[in-house]
């Protein structure tokens, strides 16, 4: 098992190291192939490890690799907690990463920083797998910060454009606000349980005080909100679209942004002990899902629509954790990784084919001629995102909403609000998904397009078909009984594989409620599709909304950026200014400079004696000698 874990973790690291050290010495083609092969190695390790875990019969294995440091009981060991959750996640991460690597091989074909790109991409896969596998929280935190660094480096990948660099910096700083809570949670946990291994902590939850559990849960939620771009820390993700599209697909859609949710799922047996934590998680997820879906409705930039929809979909996953359905949440995480990375990469192809055109109002049906096949691939992704009935998103989102409805019927009113928000969001999701589809791939462009276009290699699209296929059929991973029975596939396969993550058994909602939730979701998705067709359909004259009022507010994400600029960044800057001018310049520096000034003045005085010519030294010497002799003559030698 250790071999497989090492294979998963260290082949991408090896790739990154080789590329960093020798990337310039080997040919461009070889370095790209090397990067892809290393991720393929990670995938092979993940699959082999998964089957080995299934054969061994045990559900959880803790594998100690080596100890990083050990101080006063604080044991930072590189150890992996390998269960079916980690196995599936590691496989998904490696699989999606592999496709994105191969896609990048074509996408970045003309970029001069080719080696740097693949080096960061491989390094990212390593750090992501650390998050997926780590047992020790310090080890996990290393991965957590590592993906943050790679995200920063890849958002600002085209560093000659200052706005892209700023976007990278923003992402780095905002997620850092969440990381503070991660460190605080580690401190509290170490104080309470004297260990930082997830397995140990989950084993010791029974002995923890309820207040501690709540506190740690909320701190981890805050950390997850930073990484997974949830309210109130979501502002970095829309700007993160400044990076290359495959990077957005890998980091800002499929893997890194779901790391926060994955962490919550991993720690679920502890979180579930505190009702308050669970309620806050669900409420936060619901709020974020609705908020981001509204913002996505008004975007003009194809990648920004997808970015806001990612925030919204991750909100669903957070709802799933909050209502006590980690399996459903994880199901949605997997499916979302497939269709959202697909959408991002198709968008990347379109943007490249149209010569860096991001505005969906300038695309229209001509895209289908310039980049054939993209419309079909995008439709698969958009339908899965919207949750149109047979597509994968329908089942994954449906599972979460079914559980939300069950909680809403049996529980306190807050669950009703969560379910309602999730359902309204489902309608909005269908609306904005097909809005993008119709605007970007059908009809006459509303705005005069830039005529320049570019031929793109077809292989760039062909590598995406596995993802498109998964967007259509991945629902089969976790079908409800009545659908599965008709298709003749095992129902709730993923639930069986994952086992009982939840601790307390989460029963499946009764048939009546489940059917009702499915009916509502399915019809809402169709209604959303119909509205989008009616407003943005191919034969309509589509004009972008005027840049004022509600539409403008939605487009800017309801001014959250402005809010932070005004009420956080500006006071901070003012305080920094104040400290700089008064304390630093006026206090510390003046004191130091004053002391230095005295020394300088004294030195200037003294310098006058030495400022003369060499011969005058001799005269002074002579004078001194004469004075000494005179004294000797006067006093005499005793």
């Amino acid at each position, binding site marked *: 098992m250790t071999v497989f874990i090492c294979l998963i973790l260290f082949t991408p690291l090896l790739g990154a190291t080789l590329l960093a050290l020798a990337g310039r010495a080997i040919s461009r083609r070889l370095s790209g192939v090397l990067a892809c092969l290393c991720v393929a190695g990670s995938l092979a390790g993940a699959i082999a490890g998964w089957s080995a875990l299934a054969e061994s019969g045990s559900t959880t294995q803790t594998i100690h690799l080596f100890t990083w440091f050990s101080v006063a009981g604080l044991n930072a060991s590189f150890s992996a907690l390998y269960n079916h959750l980690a196995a599936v996640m590691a496989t998904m991460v490696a699989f999606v990463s592999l496709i994105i690597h191969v896609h990048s091989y074509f996408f970045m074909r003309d970029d001069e920083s080719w080696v740097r790109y693949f080096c960061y991409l491989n390094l990212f896969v390593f750090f992501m797998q650390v998050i997926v596998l780590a047992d020790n929280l310090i080890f996990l935190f290393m991965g957590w910060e590592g993906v943050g660094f790679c995200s920063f480096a890849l958002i600002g990948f085209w560093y000659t454009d200052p706005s892209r660099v700023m976007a990278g910096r923003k992402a780095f700083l905002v997620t850092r606000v969440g990381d503070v809570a991660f460190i605080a949670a580690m401190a509290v946990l170490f104080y309470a349980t004297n260990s930082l291994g997830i397995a140990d902590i989950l084993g010791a939850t029974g002995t923890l005080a309820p207040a501690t559990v709540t506190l740690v849960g909320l701190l981890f939620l805050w950390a997850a909100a930073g990484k997974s771009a949830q309210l109130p820390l979501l502002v970095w993700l829309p700007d993160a679209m400044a990076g290359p599209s495959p990077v957005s697909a890998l980091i800002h859609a499929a893997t890194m942004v779901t790391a926060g949710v994955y962490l919550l799922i991993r720690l679920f047996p502890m979180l579930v002990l505190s009702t308050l934590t669970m309620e806050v998680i669900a409420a936060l997820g619901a709020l974020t899902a609705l908020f981001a879906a509204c913002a996505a409705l008004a975007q003009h930039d194809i990648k920004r629509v997808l970015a806001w929809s990612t925030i919204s979909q991750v909100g669903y996953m957070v709802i799933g954790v909050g209502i006590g359905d980690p399996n459903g949440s994880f199901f949605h995480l997997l499916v979302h990784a497939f269709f959202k990375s697909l959408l991002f990469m198709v968008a990347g192809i379109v943007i490249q084919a149209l010569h860096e055109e991001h505005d969906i109002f300038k695309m229209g049906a001509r895209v289908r001629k310039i980049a054939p096949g993209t419309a079909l691939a995008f439709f698969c992704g958009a339908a899965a995102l919207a949750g149109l009935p047979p597509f994968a998103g329908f089942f994954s989102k449906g599972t979460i909403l079914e559980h939300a409805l069950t909680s809403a019927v049996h529980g306190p009113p807050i669950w009703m609000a969560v379910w309602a928000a999730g359902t309204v969001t489902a309608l909005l999701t269908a609306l904005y998904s097909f809005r993008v589809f119709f605007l970007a791939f059908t009809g006459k462009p509303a705005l005069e397009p830039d005529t320049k276009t570019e031929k793109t290699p077809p292989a760039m699209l062909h590598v995406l078909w596995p993802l498109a296929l998964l967007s259509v059929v991945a629902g089969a991973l976790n079908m409800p009984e009545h659908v599965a029975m008709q298709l003749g596939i095992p129902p709730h396969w993923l639930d069986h594989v994952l086992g009982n993550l939840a601790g307390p058994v989460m029963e499946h909602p009764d048939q009546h409620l489940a059917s009702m939730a499915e009916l509502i979701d399915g019809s809402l998705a169709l209604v959303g599709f119909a509205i989008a067709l009616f407003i943005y359909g191919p034969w309509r004259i589509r004009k972008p909304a005027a840049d004022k009022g509600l539409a403008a507010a939605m487009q800017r994400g309801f001014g959250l950026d402005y809010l932070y600029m005004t009420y956080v960044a500006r006071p901070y800057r003012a305080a920094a200014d104040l400290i700089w001018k008064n304390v630093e310049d006026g206090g510390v520096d003046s004191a130091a400079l004053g002391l230095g000034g005295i020394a300088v003045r004294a030195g200037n005085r003294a*310098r006058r004696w*030495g400022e003369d010519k*060499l*011969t005058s030294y*001799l*005269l002074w010497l002579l004078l001194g000698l004469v004075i000494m002799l005179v004294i000797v003559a006067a006093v005499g030698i005793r």
Partner: protein
Amino acid sequence: MIVPMEHVLIFAAVLFLIGLVTVVARRSLIMILLGVEVMLNAAGVAFVAGALRWWDITGQGMVLFIMAAAAAEIAVGLTLVFNIWWRTKNLNPDALTRLKG
């Protein structure tokens, strides 16, 4: 001792003063080194006078030391002078102001 002690000491003092004035007044490094030599030899004369006056060999030994020190001093000193000459083409000590703050 045929010559009186005082005469020898006055001679040594005069010699010393000549050396001293050479060192202070001349504006050439070579002349300054020369002056230092003269001063050293003036001291040597005074030592020899003392050795004869008190019939003590130590004074003459001291002169040998002075000669050795003078030889070493002139070797090092002339090397420095040559070096300065190569660098600046100038032997005026007042022109050497690179250390001036």
